[in-house]
C-alpha cells in the first residue's frame, strides 16, 4: 500500500508554478493544434517529446498530458464550426455540433463540447486514480478472442448509424474494410495492393485518409457551393439571446445520463488497448441516439449528440493510462508516445512503477487534474477567439483551412505522398456525400479494419480454425450474442419502426 505521505508529496510536486506553466502551455498548444485540421495532439506530442529531454520528468509529462487533453477538445472546434473535424475522433461531434452552429448557436455547441469533454475526462481520470490496478487486471483477461468479439459488437452498435439505406451503408462499410487491407497483411507480412509504392507498406496513412474524407471533402463541397456573394462562414444573430449562447445548468444536467454513458463507454474502451477514441465516440453517439425518445432529432442539432461524443472520446484519454501505468502497455498512439517520454526520462512503466516511482505518479495525477481545470478555463477563453474567426467570409476560411490540411498532412505523414492520398480520398469523400453513401461508416470500418483483421487471424490460430471452439470463451460468446441482438435491434427493428412512422405520418 502506498503511503499517504507519498501521495501528498507527489501532489505537492505537481502543484508548483513551473508545472502549472507547462500544463497551461501544453493545454493551449493542444487546443490550438487540435483545432487545426491535419495536425493533432499526437503529432504535437511526437514533435515535443525530444524537447522534453532537457526538462524535469514531471514537468515534461505534465506538458505532454496537457497537449493530449487540450487536443481532445480542440478537435471539436472546427468540427462544430465548419464541419471539418480537426482530429478523427471529433468526426462524430460534427454530426450534431455543426447543425447547431448553422442554427446560429456555435458558441452553445462548443461550450457543451467543452463541458462534456472535461466531464468525461475527469470521470476517467478518477477511475484511473482510484481503481486502475484491478481494472487493468480485468483488461488483461481480454485476449485476442475476446477483442475480436468486442470489435464485432462495436460494428453492430455502429449499424445504428447506417441511416436510410441499408445497402448504401453496407457498401460504405465494405469499402472502408477494403481500403484497410492495403499494406502488409498481419498474418504473413505479405504486401497487398501497394502497386510498387513502398509508402503503402504500413497501409494507407490514417491521418491522410481521415482528413481527406472528413475535412477536405467538406471544404470542396462548401467551396463548390459559394455563389458569388461574400457571406460569413456562420452567421450568428447580432442580438442573440443569452440562452442560445450559454449552456445552462439545466441543460448540462439534462445530459447527465448521456455524458455518464459516454464516459463509461470511453473508459471501458480506453482500458482495453487498441480500440481507440474514434470508435468510442461513435459507439457512444449511436447508443445515445438509440436510447433517446426522439432519435430523429439527431444529426439535426441535438445537443445530446455533442455531449455523447465529446464525453466518450475524452474519457478514452485517462483510461488509456490504465494499461500504461499498471502494465506498461500503451492503449493508443498518444499513450505509446507517453511511454516513450517516460522511457527517455528513465522511468520504466510496468508492475513496479507505483512502488519505485509512486511520488512521480501521484505528481502525474495532480498534473492531470490541473490540466482538466486548465482545459476548461482556456477553452472558455478561447471560444470567443474561434467564433471571431468564423465570422470571416467563408471563401477565406475554407481556403485557409485547405492550406492547413495540406501542410498538416504533409508534416504528419512525412511528405507529399500523404497529401496525394488525402486529395484522392477527398474526391472520394465528396462523391460519396453527393450520392448519399455514409462517409462516417466508411471511416469507422477503415479505422477498425486492420485491428479487426489482426484479432481475427489471432483468434483463428488460437481456436485452431475451429470457430465452434469459441464456446470455451464465455466473455467472447456473450459479446457475440450482444452483437446479434443489437444488429437485430438497430439494423432491422428500429429502421422498420421509423419507416412505419414515416408511412403513418404521410397517411395523416
Amino acid at each position, binding site marked *: 500500500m502506498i503511503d499517504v505521505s507519498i501521495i501528498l508529496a507527489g501532489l505537492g510536486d505537481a502543484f508548483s508554478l513551473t508545472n502549472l506553466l507547462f500544463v497551461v502551455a501544453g493545454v493551449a498548444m493542444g487546443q490550438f493544434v487540435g483545432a487545426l485540421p491535419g495536425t493533432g495532439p499526437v503529432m504535437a506530442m511526437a514533435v515535443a517529446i525530444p524537447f522534453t*529531454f532537457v526538462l524535469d520528468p514531471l514537468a515534461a509529462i505534465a506538458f505532454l498530458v496537457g497537449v493530449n487533453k487540450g487536443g481532445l477538445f480542440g478537435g471539436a472546434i472546427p468540427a462544430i464550426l465548419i464541419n471539418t473535424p480537426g482530429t478523427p475522433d471529433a468526426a462524430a461531434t460534427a454530426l450534431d455540433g455543426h447543425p447547431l452552429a448553422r442554427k446560429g448557436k456555435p458558441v452553445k455547441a462548443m461550450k457543451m463540447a467543452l463541458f462534456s469533454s472535461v466531464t468525461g475526462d475527469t470521470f476517467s481520470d478518477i477511475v484511473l486514480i482510484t481503481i486502475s490496478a484491478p481494472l487493468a487486471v480485468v483488461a488483461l483477461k481480454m485476449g*485476442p478472442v475476446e477483442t475480436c468479439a468486442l470489435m464485432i459488437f462495436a460494428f453492430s452498435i455502429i449499424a445504428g448509424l447506417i441511416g436510410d439505406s441499408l445497402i448504401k451503408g453496407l457498401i460504405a462499410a465494405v469499402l472502408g474494410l477494403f481500403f484497410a487491407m492495403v499494406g502488409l497483411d498481419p498474418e504473413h507480412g505479405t504486401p497487398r495492393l501497394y502497386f*510498387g509504392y513502398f509508402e503503402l507498406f504500413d497501409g494507407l496513412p490514417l491521418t491522410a485518409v481521415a482528413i481527406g474524407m472528413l475535412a477536405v471533402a467538406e471544404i470542396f463541397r462548401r467551396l463548390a457551393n459559394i455563389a458569388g456573394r461574400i457571406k460569413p462562414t456562420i452567421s450568428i444573430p447580432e442580438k442573440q439571446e443569452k440562452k442560445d449562447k450559454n449552456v445552462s445548468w439545466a441543460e448540462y444536467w439534462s445530459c447527465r445520463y448521456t455524458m455518464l454513458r459516454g464516459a463509461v463507454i470511453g473508459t471501458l474502451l480506453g482500458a482495453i488497448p487498441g480500440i481507440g477514441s474514434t470508435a468510442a465516440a461513435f459507439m457512444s453517439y449511436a447508443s445515445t441516439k438509440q436510447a433517446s425518445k426522439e432519435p430523429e432529432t439527431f444529426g439535426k442539432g441535438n445537443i445530446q449528440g455533442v455531449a455523447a461524443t465529446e464525453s466518450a472520446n475524452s474519457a478514452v484519454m485517462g483510461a488509456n493510462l490504465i494499461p500504461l501505468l499498471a502494465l*506498461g502497455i500503451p492503449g493508443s498512439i498518444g499513450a505509446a508516445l507517453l511511454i*516513450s517520454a517516460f522511457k*527517455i526520462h528513465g522511468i*520504466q512503466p510496468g*508492475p513496479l512503477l507505483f512502488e519505485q516511482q509512486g511520488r512521480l505518479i501521484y505528481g502525474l495525477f495532480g498534473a492531470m487534474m490541473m490540466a482538466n481545470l486548465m482545459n476548461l478555463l482556456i477553452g472558455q477563453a478561447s471560444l470567443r477567439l474561434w467564433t471571431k474567426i468564423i465570422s470571416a467570409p467563408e471563401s477565406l476560411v475554407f481556403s485557409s483551412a485547405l492550406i492547413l490540411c495540406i501542410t498538416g498532412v504533409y508534416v504528419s505523414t512525412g511528405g507529399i505522398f500523404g497529401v496525394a492520398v488525402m486529395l484522392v480520398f477527398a474526391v472520394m469523400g465528396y462523391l460519396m456525400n453527393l450520392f448519399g453513401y455514409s462517409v462516417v461508416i466508411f471511416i469507422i470500418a477503415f479505422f477498425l479494419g486492420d485491428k479487426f483483421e489482426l484479432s481475427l487471424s489471432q483468434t483463428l*490460430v488460437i481456436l*485452431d480454425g475451429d470457430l465452434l471452439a469459441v464456446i470455451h470463451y464465455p466473455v467472447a460468446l456473450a459479446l457475440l450474442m450482444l452483437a446479434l441482438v443489437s444488429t437485430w435491434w438497430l439494423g432491422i427493428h428500429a429502421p422498420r419502426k421509423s419507416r412505419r412512422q414515416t408511412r403513418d405520418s404521410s397517411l395523416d
Partner: protein
Amino acid sequence: MKLKTLFAGVTASLLMIFTAQADWAPSGPITLQIGFDAGGETDTLGRVIAGEMEKQTGWDIVVENKPGGGGIAMFTGLAVAKPDGQTLGMGVNMPILVNLVLRGDKLPFKLDSFDYLATVARAQVAIVAKSDAPFDDLAGLVEYSKANGGALVAFDAKPQELLMKYVDAEAGAGFKLISTKSSAEALQNLLGGHVVASFAAGAHIPYIESGDVKMIASANATRHGYAAETPTVVEQGYEIYVDPYFFIAAPAGLPSDAKAALAAALHKAITSNVAKKAIVNSLKTDPSDLGPDGTQKMLVDGVGNVKKLFGK
C-alpha cells in the same frame, strides 16, 4: 593576465587540432531522415544524436521523419539523394534485410546503394514466459508444446516468427504462432495468459524484476547484459538468431573526407553521455557503434543470416 594568455593559447591550439581533424564541413544544413514515425524509438534516438552532433560540431542538422515499410520508403529516397554528406538516413536493419532477401529484385536499392557510417545500438530480443510456466528453457518449451498439442507463442516482427519456425522445424514442437502489432501487445497476451511464451524487447525487464516473468532465451547472437545467466537460442542448440541494429547510412559515393568526418562526428555523438543515457533508457543496452566498416559487415552478414531464417 598570464593565465588569460595561456588560456587563449590553449584554446587556439585546441581549435587548430579540431579544424585539422575535421577538414570537411557541410556547405549547408545536414538532413537526417528517420525511417519511422515521430515519437518511436528510432526517432527519439535519432533526434538525441542529431542534437548532440549539432552541439559538438556546430553543423546545422535537421531531422525529418520519412515513415513507410519499416524504413523502405526512406531508403528508397536516400538511394537517389546527392552523396554530398548532407543527406543521411537512420533505420533498423531487419526490415531492410528481410525485404532484400524476399523481394530484392523489386526494391529500388541494393546493399551497395549506400555508404554506411555507424550503428547506434543493438536491440535486445528475448523469449520470455510467465514465471509459473512449467519450463525454463527452449527444450522445456518444446516438450510442453508437444505434450499440449502446440504452444501459443506471440511475436511482433517477421524475423521472430521465422526464428520460431526454424526451431519448430528442427524440434517438431508444433508451435502455434500469434502475430501481434507491438512487443507490448505480445507481452500483454503473455501476462493475460493468452499465450505461453512471447518475444519481448525491453518491456519485459521490469516484469523479470517483479518476478512475474522469466526469460527462456536471448534471441540475439549474444546474451543480454541484464540476464547474463540466460543462454542464447544458439547456445540452446538452434543455429539461428536475430540482431536488430539501429544504423545510419548515406547515399553511395560519399567523398572519403566527408565519410571520415561524418563517421567521426557520429561516433562522438553516439558515445556521448546524453545519447548513452537515452539509449540505455529506451533500449536497456549500451550504445554500440561498429564504425563504417563494421556497419557494412553487419549488413552483409545479416543478409546471410536472414536467408537462413527464410530457409533460402
